[in-house]
């Protein structure tokens, strides 16, 4: 799928930077990927790898006081988003590209009922009457399987449990039939039985609506169970990309391998977890060579001095590594 023009979203060589007291942070440092129609793409990585900043860049939600998209291109249905005016961007967000976040309470307005909030989004983007928008809100709550939807329309976010709030966020995000839904750690704050319900729901709705999903998470279990293709990020870079089965069967990048050996497993007893020694490099200084070299068990002198190539092993599987052979 990678590289074909049927992508609904095409991100090319994206660089997003922030100004901090310690200097310029290269949060996203040359990331490219495609999203196909109706596809579920996972972006996985640890804190600070740039996965959330990538999502915020796509939606152009990088706060202009501190950060900016320094270069690169983001095309949505062929239209360049990096240079699109703010008004046009506003018409896009919540309509054709939607987003849900980890903590729904921070994105819901505490003084408006959930019905009003969903209806507001519908009225703004689809220009329908208030009554029709409220009907649509009711339909959406039904769709995300909130029992007694009509009564819930008049409740405030604080009256709902965490799982219900996340359902409301999903209802709102899908209320205008977006082509792309970006979900940033949508189940991280939820208990496991609730997480299972929300993941089931997202996949069901994807089947029904055909919305493509970008699922951003640190959780390899969530990635394995929900996505079709995966981008692994490290220190602002894409270090590996593969169809989900290929990634788990045959992880190529030493970082991906390290991550997989470091997670405790529910299904097998491991005598000892593999550690990835050291820490993520500082992103305030330009990284010479491979960003993972300092922690990599197989790094050579070349890895520390020259930027590694993106090696294509076929079948849509690529890795940013000197030691991987095509």
């Amino acid at each position: 799928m990678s590289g074909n023009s049927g992508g609904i979203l095409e991100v090319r060589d994206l660089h997003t930077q922030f100004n901090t007291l310690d200097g310029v942070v290269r949060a996203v440092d040359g990331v490219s990927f495609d999203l196909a129609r109706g596809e579920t793409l996972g972006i996985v990585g640890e804190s600070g790898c740039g996965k959330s900043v990538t999502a915020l860049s796509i939606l152009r939600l990088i706060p202009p006081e501190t950060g900016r998209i320094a270069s690169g291109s983001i095309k949505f249905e062929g239209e360049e988003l990096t240079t699109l005016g703010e008004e046009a961007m506003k018409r896009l967000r919540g309509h054709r590209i939607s987003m849900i976040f980890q903590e729904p309470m921070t994105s819901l307005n505490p003084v408006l009922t959930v019905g009003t909030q969903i209806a507001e989004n519908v009225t703004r983007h689809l220009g329908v009457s208030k009554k029709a928008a409220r009907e649509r809100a009711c339909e959406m709550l039904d769709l995300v399987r909130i029992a007694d939807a009509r009564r819930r329309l008049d409740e405030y976010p604080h009256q709902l449990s965490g799982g219900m709030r996340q359902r409301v966020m999903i209802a709102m995000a899908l209320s205008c039939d977006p082509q792309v839904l970006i979900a940033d750690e949508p189940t991280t704050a939820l208990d496991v039985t609730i997480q299972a319900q929300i993941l089931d729901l997202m996949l069901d709705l994807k089947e029904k609506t055909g919305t493509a999903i970008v699922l951003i998470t640190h959780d390899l279990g969530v990635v394995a169970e929900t996505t079709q293709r995966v981008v692994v990020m490290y220190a602002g870079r894409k270090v590996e990309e593969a169809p989900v089965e290929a990634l788990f069967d045959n992880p190529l990048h030493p970082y991906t391998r390290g991550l997989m050996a470091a997670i405790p497993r529910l299904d097998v007893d491991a005598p000892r977890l593999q550690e990835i020694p050291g820490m993520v490099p500082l992103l305030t200084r330009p990284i010479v060579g491979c960003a993972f070299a300092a922690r990599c068990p197989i790094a050579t002198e070349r890895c520390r001095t020259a930027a590694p190539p993106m090696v294509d092993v076929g079948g849509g599987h690529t890795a940013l590594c000197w030691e991987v052979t095509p």
Partner: protein
Amino acid sequence: MTVLAVDKLVKHFPIHGGLLQRQVGSVKAVDGVSFSIAKGETLGLVGESGCGKSTVGKTILKLIEPTAGRIVLGGEDITALKPGAMWPHRRRIQTIFQDPYSSMNPRLPAGTIVGEPLENFGIAQGRARDERVAALFERVGLRPEAMRKYAHEFSGGQRQRLGIAKALAVSPEVIVADEPVSALDVSVQAQVLNLLIDLQAEYGLAYLFISHDLAVMRHISHRIAVMYLGRIVELTDKRTLFARPLHPYTEALLSAATVPDPRRRRAKKAIVQGDVPSPAKPPPGCHFHTRCPYAVADCKVKDPPLREVAPGHHVACHLR
């Protein structure tokens, strides 16, 4: 050898309401919990938010007073001890938090933070203290030079190492670890889990390991207690728990957890629907009956006792 035993532990928090702020009810955070931990053993306490697992930890540490029940630490009943009388026992039971940063004075160098318990308990002072702190730093994988740094200069994983060094300083017998790796990235989480396992082997520490993460539990625990709304619903060794879970809630937790293997993806993950009921108004009978796919009439009225159905395997369910 049992180092910590807890018998029918209860902790109720009053709910005040109305004009006069009278007590109108209580949250039964912990509702009759019993278990014991042996030297060198890890007991995992697992459950979802609000199940009371953290309250069990805090009560055992006597950071909050139990409403009823008994806590026996190394053969001595510490349940009713007042803070003064509790003091000498605090050396024997220490804690590691999820967020060690919040328990560290930002204006003190890390060496002073770790060395504080040594002075407080009169174990070592001055040079002797510094030497012990340096040894502790090395043991937990920090450079002794880092003693001069401040808490904010450490990464999340290093701070958790500091928290572990501080807990270890007074050579405790029991460590209550409340979600010690939940805030850490997986690569760092592996480092901290390995360290905890090594320290246990070295010092014969007993851990009460509180977590919501079943995979972490499987890795570190010897026995696991599953809690739901203030009660233990199943308690057994980890192998049995993962191979033959008996309580429907344990089954639900195991099936809901994600596995990092795309070939083991199941069509439907959620076998229980709905949310956990409020611990202020737990359902009558078996607390889980409102979400249980197998519940029968009896479950709605009768409390299931925690029974030993096989050697060492305890379960609280009418149907097993």
